[in-house]
């Protein structure tokens, strides 16, 4: 079973701010998601190759340039970055 502490930990790792009073609801939601995923595991496997998702194919865009984002927005999640770059944290 998933715990409040695990949710808190995931939030920290994902750099998400979660309000104290949201924690209980989120823990319940996450538990439901995991139970749902477990249901999928019990599904009978068909040998058929699934070629199409929802019978869709060929969803393309044409090769036309769209404006990119302002760099300050791109680097917002790394506190503005360093000299326009994403810094890479040293790993031990």
């Amino acid at each position, binding site marked *: 079973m998933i715990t409040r502490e695990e949710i808190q930990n995931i939030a920290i790792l994902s750099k998400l701010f979660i309000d104290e009073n949201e924690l209980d609801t989120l823990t319940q939601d996450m538990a439901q998601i995991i139970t749902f995923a477990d249901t999928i595991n019990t599904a009978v496997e068909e040998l058929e190759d*699934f*070629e*199409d*998702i*929802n019978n*869709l*194919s*060929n*969803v*393309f*865009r*044409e*090769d*036309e*340039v*769209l*404006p*990119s*984002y302002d*760099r300050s927005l*791109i*680097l917002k999640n790394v506190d503005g*970055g*360093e*000299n*326009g*770059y*994403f*810094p*890479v944290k*040293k790993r031990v």
Partner: protein
Amino acid sequence: MTYELVSGLETHIELSTKTKIFCGCTTAFGSEPNTNCCPICIGLPGTLPKLNHQVVRYAIMAGLATNCQINNISKMDRKNYVYPDLSKAYQVSQFDKPLCKNGYITLDSGKKINILRIHIEEDAGKLVHERGDTFVDYNRGGVPLIEIVTEPDFRSIDEVKEYVEKLQLIMKYVGVSDCKMQEGSLRCDVNISVRPQGEEKLGTRTEIKNMNSFTFMAKALQYEYDRQIDVIESGEQVIQETRRYNDDTGETESMRGKEDAHDYRYFREPDLVTISTTDEEIEQIRSLLPELPSAKLDRYINEYGISATDAAIIAKYRKVAEFFDEACEGVKAQKIVSNLIISQIFRRFPTDGEKEDFEISITAKMLNDLVLLIDNGKLNMNLAKSTLEKMLDTGKPVSELVSEKDLSGVDESALRQICEEIVSANPSAVSDFKNGKTNAFKSLIGGVMKATKGRADAMLATKILEELIK
């Protein structure tokens, strides 16, 4: 014991699309770091990729130009690995249903290098190392690539080099990539193993990643060939691994153990739908392919009677070949055109890069006009050459540089009269020639050409002079 080299190649080529593979960000090279980015190409959660149609068309063109079969049904897969240059911790690539398969490129020897597959994928970002710190620029992240995978068909470094050169030229002709190795738009991963001559079983292979120069590739292959032989001769075993070539030491060094496909946990990319291409669409793309380098070469040698060396020099540069073809319109002696380009025009384009870009001041039509005058005997070679120089200097057409009088040439009786004058004015040159100094004849011819301002037919003048002196 002698050992045989066995090598296969994975070549990554950046496609010349205007935008990235899954978003509308530009693929322009050399922009400020992280300025060609959006939430899709930096891999933010909740974003949805949408495939650039041109990437599919270009990949199919590349496949058709290398004799591949095109898969009517193809799909994208996620290749999972964790590295800071990969924003999503997976690369969207193709696993078991690539766009193209089973092609080949023929080497000059007639040997076929088999192409196993060509698939499309996204490029990673670029890591920048500075004073012990590492930074990422995601401008390159999401730029479309094709990866061309060969069978282990190479048996020498020369074969590898020839293949890469041929591949590069084909892709440039087809126009799917500029294939600039120094800018990293063509990079090779080389698989290499050795085995005793005559042995059927393949040896354990190593892979050298990310080679983007012919020189390094040749050096790295040679080093790795020698190293593997040393390992085997000393009774040890070659370890299957990924190695990097260090140009400072001239050696390859171990990077990491080689991953196998299962290490990447490939699975279907759920955010992208199936790519389906009908036979009609494939044939339509085939009809748009330009004449390929091998066909051009064949035509120059067999139809135009140009020497293999000269034909290869022309066909080596796409823009030069196109210029040449246009300048040959209606010309009887195409050899004159190739000679003028190689011996005269190329003097103004000394480097490979300049010939590649071929920013010439005259149009092919202007050269064509000049050559047609030579063809019709209206302009002799000397005058044509000096006119061409003037054309290249000024960018003006032949009609503005050569007068009607020049084009009329000098008729035989007028020429005979001039020759007589030259002979009587230069008695010493005449007697020198009679005494066996063949060089003296040149000064007489020179005199005739000077007197006619280069308009005389040199062959005819020679004939008349010989008659007069005898």
